[in-house]
């Protein structure tokens, strides 16, 4: 019986490394993008593009976004901006009147008199109007606060020269000015999650998600997926990405095409945004349940590599808890094995963390100059310290091989806490969120975030999303408030 439990614990520890190993496999594919990319099928193609900007009370950011769009490097008259005003109650209509006078024939204001149904409904109002006309050959779905670099649209449209491509997304960068600790963490996260991971997905041949901030669709693709964005989930961008690929067209990222956006400036706001994303992804997991781990026609989108990628991200908190249970279980069953398993677990984590962090610095050296420290402490100071413990070979387990309560010491308590950290990090991150929400001073929030880590915070949000879905908590579309702090940075 004891042997069986020991093996079970070892299996749990192995499962705890799944997100790390999948992340490493993805990392290996990023470099291959130098060989397997879509550039060979690109051409100098500049279709007429309609930008759709959903806007609800975006007066603070809209003017700057429109100005940035009107300054792009693209053939004159080949792009138009449609702002879909979701019954805004601020000065959005006044801003729009001013911009329509400033850019006659290029900027259009589509107002919904009854709003509040969410981004997908707002987008559909604009997409329907655009598709009703014959002018647009491609449609760019974006957010109202997103700023385009001058060459971004050209870099994206060149992929549509290949009729196999239905959608193209860009690398969304965090552009809050002045920056702050959270924005720098997000900037580093976006290097890993977009510039790196999506290059790997280009190589795989299946994309998880086209960023909602910059999604370029060919007209044919939009029509093929029904001429509208799905309104049944909280992750309409991911749903559209899946639908595009299931309709037979490919989706790619051009990570050299860059747009800038403002991301949340408090943990509470980040929690709200990411909880929505997390719940949306779980809805998609259920909506496309027939797809997972299939073979044949859907091999690429739902096959084993894509399934592992999808579920290792969605279920990261569960893998982390299993890892912690395995290590602590081993400590009680046969302490020397706990130390061995701990070393292997954290050494593997260190190798992946070290390689990926260095590579992310190379992928986006400009952003990394600002967020290198946040990149280094992305997993949190505690986790970095545990990697050092594993490398240094420091003994963390007690002197006895098999523990009993009679010989329990403070050292054993410390050892259990260390072994259980992968499972404790997410609850600790949840506490940081609660402290932030309670209005704690920024310095305290920042200090705690550095100790616990941004990675565990994302893990905690993913866990909260799972709980919310299981509890069937109310689904509502909470908009992330933007204040116009994003700037194009060089």
């Amino acid at each position, binding site marked *: 019986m004891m042997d069986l439990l020991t093996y079970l614990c070892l299996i749990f520890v192995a499962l705890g490394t799944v997100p790390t190993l999948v992340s490493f496999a993805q990392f290996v594919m990023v*470099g291959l993008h130098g060989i397997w990319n879509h550039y060979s099928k690109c051409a100098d193609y500049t279709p007429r593009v309609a930008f759709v900007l959903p806007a609800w009370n975006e007066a603070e950011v809209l003017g700057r976004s429109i100005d940035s769009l009107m300054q792009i490097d693209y053939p004159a008259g080949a792009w138009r901006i449609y702002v879909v005003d979701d019954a805004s109650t601020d000065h959005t209509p006044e801003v729009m009147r001013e911009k329509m006078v400033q850019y006659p024939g290029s900027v259009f204001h589509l107002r919904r008199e009854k709003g509040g149904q969410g981004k997908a409904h707002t987008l559909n109002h604009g997409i329907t109007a655009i598709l009703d006309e014959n002018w647009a050959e491609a449609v760019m779905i974006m957010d109202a606060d997103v700023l385009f670099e001058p*060459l971004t649209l050209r870099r994206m449209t060149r992929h549509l020269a290949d009729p196999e491509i239905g959608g193209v997304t860009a690398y969304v960068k965090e552009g809050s000015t002045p920056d702050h600790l959270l924005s720098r963490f997000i900037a580093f996260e976006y290097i890993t999650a977009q510039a790196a991971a999506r290059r790997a997905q280009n190589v795989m041949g299946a994309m998880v998600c086209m960023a909602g901030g910059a999604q370029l669709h060919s007209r044919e693709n939009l029509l093929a997926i029904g001429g509208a964005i799905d309104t049944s989930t909280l992750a309409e961008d991911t749903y559209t990405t899946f639908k595009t690929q299931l309709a037979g067209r490919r989706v790619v990222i051009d990570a050299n095409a860059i747009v800038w956006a403002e991301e949340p400036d408090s943990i509470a706001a980040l929690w709200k945004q990411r909880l929505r994303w997390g719940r949306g992804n779980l809805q998609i997991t259920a909506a496309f349940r027939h797809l997972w781990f299939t073979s044949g026609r859907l091999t690429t989108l739902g096959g084993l590599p894509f399934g592992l990628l999808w579920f290792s991200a969605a279920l990261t908190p569960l893998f982390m808890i299993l890892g912690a249970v395995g290590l602590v279980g081993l400590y009680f069953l046969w302490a020397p094995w706990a130390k061995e398993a701990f070393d292997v677990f954290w050494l593997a984590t260190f190798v992946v963390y*070290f390689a990926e962090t260095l590579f992310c610095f*190379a*992928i986006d050296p400009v952003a990394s100059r600002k967020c290198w420290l946040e990149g280094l402490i992305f997993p949190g100071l505690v986790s970095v310290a545990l990697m050092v413990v594993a490398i240094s070979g420091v003994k963390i387990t007690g002197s006895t091989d098999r523990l009993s309560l009679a010989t329990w010491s403070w050292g054993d308590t410390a050892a259990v806490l260390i072994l259980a950290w992968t499972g404790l990090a997410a609850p600790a991150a949840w506490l940081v969120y609660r402290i932030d929400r309670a209005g704690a001073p920024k310095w305290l929030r920042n200090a705690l975030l550095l100790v616990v880590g941004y990675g565990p915070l994302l893990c905690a949000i993913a866990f909260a999303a799972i709980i919310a879905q299981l509890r069937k908590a109310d689904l509502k579309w909470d908009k992330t408030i933007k204040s116009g702090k994003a700037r194009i940075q060089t």
Partner: protein
Amino acid sequence: MGQDDQIGQSQDSDLTSAASAFARLMAEDKRQEIRLLWWQIGISAVVIALVAAYFILR
């Protein structure tokens, strides 16, 4: 040389400059992807060397 010829030449030169701008953009982006491949090879080599050294010296 007639006015039509001049207009034709100007359009040709616009097209040529647009084509070369596009070619430059493509070359720049392809170079970036190749650069990343070399970076990854370099980083992987360093990591493998460090891991090997760790296990040898352990």
